[in-house]
């Protein structure tokens, strides 16, 4: 397979396969959750499930002061790499061009040097997060192979994207192909790993807030 054949495979069939697994996988996972349902609550309510649930979706973005003190690194680093990923994925001009091809509309991009810097900050933060996972006693105890795997497939698109943009090491088509391939790897693993939290956190926060809201507690 030549360099260009490789690129056209990852852009064509490779991407199609990844997209199918990504989309159907997520639908199946969400159905697996919803189809379980839950029992109606027969206790007299002291508040609203809906408003408690909706509130929690947003309120969990702002931790309580004691939590902030005790989990400072996790919270700050978590914020940085999530926002960083958002900027790099959705506000980089070439990415927007790609998305608009798929979904038919586009939006404004951030200046490329800003995205470039963001990708570096995000990679550094992810490296710090990995170190924290290895060093911190609780994190170490909690960590399973999947946590490292998910870290790797999140980090690789950033790294390959950075290398492709700066044309480091390999010819441009190969770098681009590797970048797309790393994204496809992320997409394929997405429905089978904790990466699913990107969708299910909305449900979890809603359920949590609803359970508390029913009792008149703001969680």
């Amino acid at each position, binding site marked *: 397979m030549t360099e260009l054949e490789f690129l056209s495979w990852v852009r064509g069939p490779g991407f199609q396969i990844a997209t199918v697994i990504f989309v159907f996988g997520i639908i199946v996972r969400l159905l*697996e*959750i919803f189809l379980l349902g839950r029992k109606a609550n027969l206790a007299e309510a002291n508040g609203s499930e809906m408003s408690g649930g909706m509130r929690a979706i947003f309120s969990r973005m702002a931790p309580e002061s004691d939590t902030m003190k005790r989990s400072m690194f996790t919270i700050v680093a978590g914020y940085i790499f999530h926002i960083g990923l958002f900027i790099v994925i959705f506000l980089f001009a070439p990415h927007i061009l790609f998305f608009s091809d798929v979904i038919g509309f586009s939006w404004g991009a951030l200046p490329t040097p800003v995205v470039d810097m963001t990708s570096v900050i995000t990679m550094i933060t992810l490296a710090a997060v990995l170190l924290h996972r290895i060093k911190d006693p609780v994190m*170490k105890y*909690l960590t399973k192979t999947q*946590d490292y795997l998910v870290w790797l497939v999140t980090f690789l698109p950033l790294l390959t994207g950075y290398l492709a943009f700066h044309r480091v090491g390999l010819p441009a088509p190969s770098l681009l192909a590797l970048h797309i391939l790393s994204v496809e790897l992320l997409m394929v693993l997405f429905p089978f790993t904790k990466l699913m939290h990107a969708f299910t956190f909305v449900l979890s926060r809603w359920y949590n807030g609803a359970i508390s809201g029913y009792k008149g507690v703001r969680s």
Partner: protein
Amino acid sequence: MSTKLEQAVHALKEQIDAPVASFLSSCVHCGMCAQACLFHTETGDPKYTPILKVEPLRRVWQQEYTFWGRMKKMFGLAKPITDEFLAEWEELVYDSCTMCGRCSMVCPVGNDITYMIRKTREGMAVSGHVPDGLVGATTRAVTIGSPMGVKFVALEAQIRHVEKDYGYKVPVDVEGADYLCMLSSMEIMNFPEYIGAIAKIFDHADVSWTLSSKAFEATNSGIQIGVSDIAAELVQRIVSEAERLKVKCVISPECGHAYTAIRWEGPNLAGKKFGFKVRHILEVLDELRQEGRLKTEGMKDNRLTYHDPCQIGRRGGVLEQPRNLINMVASDFVEMPDAGKMNWCCGAGGGVSTNERADEIRLKSFQRKKEQLEAVQAETLVSACSNCRIHIEDGLEAYHMDIPVISLTETLAEHLVDKE
């Protein structure tokens, strides 16, 4: 797989619903729940990380309800659920969790871990891996009617003392009373002053109330051990009496888990909506306050703080009422750091206090409460749960601290003006 183990796995499977599946799908292993749990913060041991305590439930969910997990199971790659595994988890699920719900408040993806611990206990109980202390308490609750083995004759004797000491009648089995007042055995045996306080307050406010000779115990060991059938039977005893006496409202006593049991789990265990209301005593007292039916005199002027029992505050929704009531009788009321819905558990709820094996970790985790009390230099601690109260007294003694622990209901009763 032994039959018992199969049944345990089945019981766990039965517990899994959409919230559980979304919680377990969302966990990113960030470790923040550990920082919210006093069993971890005070021991530093990572094994007490809350989300890990639900591992039995998680394994069943993964192997039964996820595509990938079923595949792994089919090819023998899934971690098996063995008797040894559940035995190892017994301490984590029962000794080092009070179901206080603090971890559920901090999880960034919104996991209600406590909701899952409660469910995990259903499977643990079936597997037989439960602390002896809880088995004993539950057996006594079923056969005698009280986890401490208190029979009505003992309550009757306490009622006679209270009537003599306080000079108020304590009504029993009065049909058509507005309120059926429940008690905890802890109150009957250790704090009968609570009964006196209720008699005095209800006389003062002209409240029609009664105790029941057949159902006076409000606590529910069935919930703490995790056997819903037993929990339902214990709830049903109260429901039957409330219906027989035709009361409008059942009052949950100064006990946190009793409130969760009858107020929030009760109708779901009984399988029907109640034809009467259920209120915590603090809610009833605050309603009386709002209606202007409580006239108090004098103020406590020493530095007083309030310990929110988890099941009354964070898990129960009764947060403002105690503060309204305290402000009636205390001039120097201070809030501890994290007071209210983020308060730290005393360390003894959810069956921990009935489990002697947990004594050491229970007292070790009390350091959290100690630090909270020291931060405000409290001179008096008021609370509304006799289980919290007895454990806090125990903890204060162990740490050589001299702070009286008082009941909010009793404090209020002391400050009532004499009826004209």
